[in-house]
């Protein structure tokens, strides 16, 4: 007899692709089982009972059954749809970037509740009044840090001495800040005291706090110039949504 294996997870829909006449493959980032792909049958029909909870970015309680190669969605109860994200192109582009970053950085079926909570909180921040660039730069630093790829922001990656905010450099390839002496001899970009302090704050402060902050234009731009290549350097391929962050 074949055992039916159904289980419930808390999920965020991070990508989807149409399949056949009315089905869709959804890539879910779940709290309990990490990233997994599932078939949602009939989800494109207007009367589908699954459609609500499986929309892009939506947070849902989902019941899955083990299928032949992909899981099959049997129920989807929406928890939060993050509706405001779609009402503003900038928020939409930033949410897409967050979802794509997680999608590219993690392997299938590796549970990581902390990463799930990070993605959930960045979507919450984007859905509310948070400043999209501030949130995403914080998210980049936190996700990379959590997965062990984060930049060193306190000590020089060349010699290990603590780096003050003055005269510091930042190296994409070496993986973080450099003191004046080491930075001068290698390929490190200059980083202003304000930007370095902002980077430290973004690493330290919780996402909920970042949702209430807004970096000044010049700091945000400088961090973008440093972090964008830093993230890209650690990815297998550049993110498609990255070019829409400037919109």
């Amino acid at each position, binding site marked *: 007899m*074949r055992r039916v294996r159904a289980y419930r997870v808390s999920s965020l829909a991070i*990508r989807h692709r149409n399949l056949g006449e009315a089905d869709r493959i959804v890539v879910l980032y779940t709290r309990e089982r990490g990233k997994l792909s599932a078939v949602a049958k009939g989800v494109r029909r*207007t009367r589908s009972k699954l459609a609500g*909870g499986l929309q*892009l970015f939506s947070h849902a309680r989902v019941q899955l059954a083990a299928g032949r190669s992909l899981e099959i969605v049997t129920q989807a109860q929406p928890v939060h749809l993050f509706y405001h994200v779609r009402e503003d192109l900038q928020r939409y582009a930033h949410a897409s970037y967050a979802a794509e970053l997680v999608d590219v950085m993690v392997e299938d079926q590796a549970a990581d509740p902390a990463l799930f909570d990070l993605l959930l909180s960045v979507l919450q921040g984007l859905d509310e009044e948070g400043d999209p660039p501030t949130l995403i730069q914080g998210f980049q630093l936190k996700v990379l840090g959590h997965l062990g790829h984060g930049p060193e922001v306190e000590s020089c990656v060349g010699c290990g001495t603590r780096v003050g905010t003055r005269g510091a450099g930042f190296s994409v390839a070496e993986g973080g800040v450099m003191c004046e002496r080491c930075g001068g001899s290698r390929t490190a970009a200059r980083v202003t005291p304000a930007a370095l302090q902002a980077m430290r704050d973004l690493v330290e402060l919780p996402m909920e706090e970042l949702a209430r902050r807004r970096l000044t234009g010049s700091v945000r731009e400088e961090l973008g110039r440093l972090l964008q290549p830093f993230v890209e350097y650690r990815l297998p391929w550049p993110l498609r949504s990255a*070019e829409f962050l400037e919109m």
Partner: protein
Amino acid sequence: MGAWGSQGCCRVGFARDFLEVVAAMRAYPKPLARLIEELEKLPGIGPKSAQRLALHLLRTTEEEASALADAIREVKESIGTCPVCFNYTAGGPCELCSDLQRDDGVLCVVGDARDLMAMERAGSHRGRYHVLQGLISPMEGMGPDSLRIPELLARVREGEFTEVILATNPTVEGDATAMYVARLLKPLGIKVTRIALGLPVGGDLDYADDVTISRSLEGRREM
């Protein structure tokens, strides 16, 4: 049988199907194998279905097979996009654009040609159409520049439209696209409307999500 066993069994089954087809391909004469290979490229057609379709075509009459081949060739040779609304057309402005009976005051904006066909099937819209040829999706690399938005703005500026109906899908992509287009159209001083959101005919209130229910309340009407 335990969970591991049943799954293992499925995997073996799948591998066996695959090997069977590969072995069968070798047994077929080259032209037939080529047809199977071509059919397999179609969406939703796996190796088994491709094999079945190819054998079916082999059994049909010469005329029937040629009719299919001609139809495919003709579609590729003659169908292009309408220079006005970007719907599919067999050369020049499409039938909907050249139809003098239609209302030049109302423009309905849809994501792709299939959505246009769905609107036409319902038969309630008697105005003109504009097909965006996609929806904004950063993850797919689709930005506003990839869509027919400049052409839409030009049409609205030069035309006699009094209302633009945004009829993109009520999905994240469709809503985001509609919001973006609405923001560009508003300064032109034209009435911009969005198709209603709410419960589908024959739907079930119990299964509707919060947003759908809120939208259906916002759009309620007096009886």
